């Protein structure tokens, strides 16, 4: 059946499209900071550690997304402080969070009945299963993201651009950096439903990385990254629906392919 025709008939597809748009706008805005500050690995650590919180929430009967949010913020704060104060330990600690978080998650989930379906959804996402309640939560988190970024746009740009100069101008660099990492954590949680926590990193970094080639400022880089992310998500969703293959993996492959082609084109031109 044609994707667009199905879209008019099925509520779950409409929800999926909405979720893709919400996740893409978050990843475009925050991903821009992740790319220019080069903290992709740190973001990966946060994303994987989140499974621990989701597993625990599931086991104790809370909303998994709530568990994810709490864990993501804690991981962001701890890893952020490590990055600022004990840089030599950074990659070790990120790896530890990465693996230990997943281990905790797997153990909790294995002790919860009916785990197999849930586990695959958390790892690789299933945007077709997004509920109204999750959509509402995504919308709220998105609003929080947008408002915070608008309020502190010049400060965030300053600390990612030139940390020493920002400090000399009297900005609270540590606090701002931790807030920025918390925003990253929030957007990771937003995207987990769409592409899962293993694939999240690609959607967070690749649209912004492509956008960097074609834009002059942080604002326009964010704008283009949002548009590209939405485009990749919807294309992936359409393809996965038509071919009846998993949506998360398809979205990531579309994104990675676009990144590869556009980067080669950009290299050839310059």
């Amino acid at each position: 059946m044609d994707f667009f025709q199905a879209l008019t008939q099925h509520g779950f597809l409409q929800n999926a499209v909405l979720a893709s748009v919400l996740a893409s706008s978050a990843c475009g805005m925050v991903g821009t900071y992740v790319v220019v500050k080069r903290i992709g690995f740190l973001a990966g650590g946060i994303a994987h550690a989140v499974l621990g919180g989701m597993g625990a929430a599931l086991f104790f009967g809370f909303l998994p997304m709530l568990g994810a949010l709490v864990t993501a913020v804690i991981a962001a704060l701890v890893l952020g402080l490590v990055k600022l104060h004990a840089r030599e330990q950074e990659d070790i600690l990120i790896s530890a969070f990465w693996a230990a978080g997943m281990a905790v998650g797997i153990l909790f989930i294995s002790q919860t009945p009916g785990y197999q379906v849930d586990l695959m959804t958390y790892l690789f996402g299933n945007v077709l299963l997004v509920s109204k309640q999750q959509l509402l939560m995504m919308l709220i988190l998105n609003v929080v993201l947008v408002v915070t970024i608008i309020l502190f746009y010049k400060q965030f740009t300053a600390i990612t651009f030139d940390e020493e100069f920002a400090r000399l101008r009297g900005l609270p660099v540590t606090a701002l950096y931790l807030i920025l990492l918390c925003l990253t954590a929030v957007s990771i949680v937003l995207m987990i439903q769409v592409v899962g926590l293993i694939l999240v990193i690609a959607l967070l970094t690749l649209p912004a990385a492509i956008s960097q080639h074609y834009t002059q400022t942080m604002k326009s880089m964010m704008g283009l990254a949002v548009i590209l992310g939405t485009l990749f998500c919807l294309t992936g969703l359409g393809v996965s629906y038509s071919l009846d293959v998993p949506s998360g993996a398809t979205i990531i492959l579309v994104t990675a392919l676009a990144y590869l082609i556009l980067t080669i084109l950009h290299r050839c031109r310059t």
Partner: protein
Amino acid sequence: MSKAIEIVDLTFRYGDLLVLDAIDIEVELNEFIGVVGPNAGGKSTLLKIVLGLLQPDRGKVTVLGTTPSKARKKLGYVPQYPTFPRDFPITVGQTVLMGRLGVTKPFAGYATSDISVAEQAMTETEIQHLASRRLNTLSGGQLQRVMLARALVSQPELMLLDEPTSNIDTRLESEIFDLLKELNKRMAIVVVSHDVGFISKYVERVACLNRTLVCHKTETIDGRTLQQLYGSDVHMVAHRHS
């Protein structure tokens, strides 16, 4: 408040390495002073202590009548190398505007007054035609002017520059120093350099720093001073820059 900088008996170590040893110096509010000395002689370290980025092991540092970190917002600083990635997606105008941080309103964008101050600074440093260019399209000399403009927009009372001309050719070097001379009418300027001969034409005093510090009036610098400073025979060539 009577002095731009007052340093009494300052000592600083990196681990076991004694970098600055019992430094005393005073810089007047209208002064233009050069700091010269060999590499690793402690020049950049001294600037970072005045900026409050490093804490001395011993001694008292007073900047504009207060502690370095409290004086920070009234200081302008031009680092030796850009402390930011060149490929960052940002224009010249926005980079310069960042100097308004700490002075401007706390939330959302910059105020109209910030933008006019930034335009003024760009005019003064002759980069207004570059305002909408992205940083990675600039030459070394243009980038240096951007960093100078960024330091100027915070309307500092004391400007600190670390080898501002090490990456650019001599003609541009003179232009930058002519500009500094002009700025000296409204602020104190401390400029770190490796080129004694060149800066002595512009500054009133030269502080020679090689772990310890000795100040000279520019006209009294001779071969013996330089030999003491650099620790080996230095040939001084009398020459004029035109």
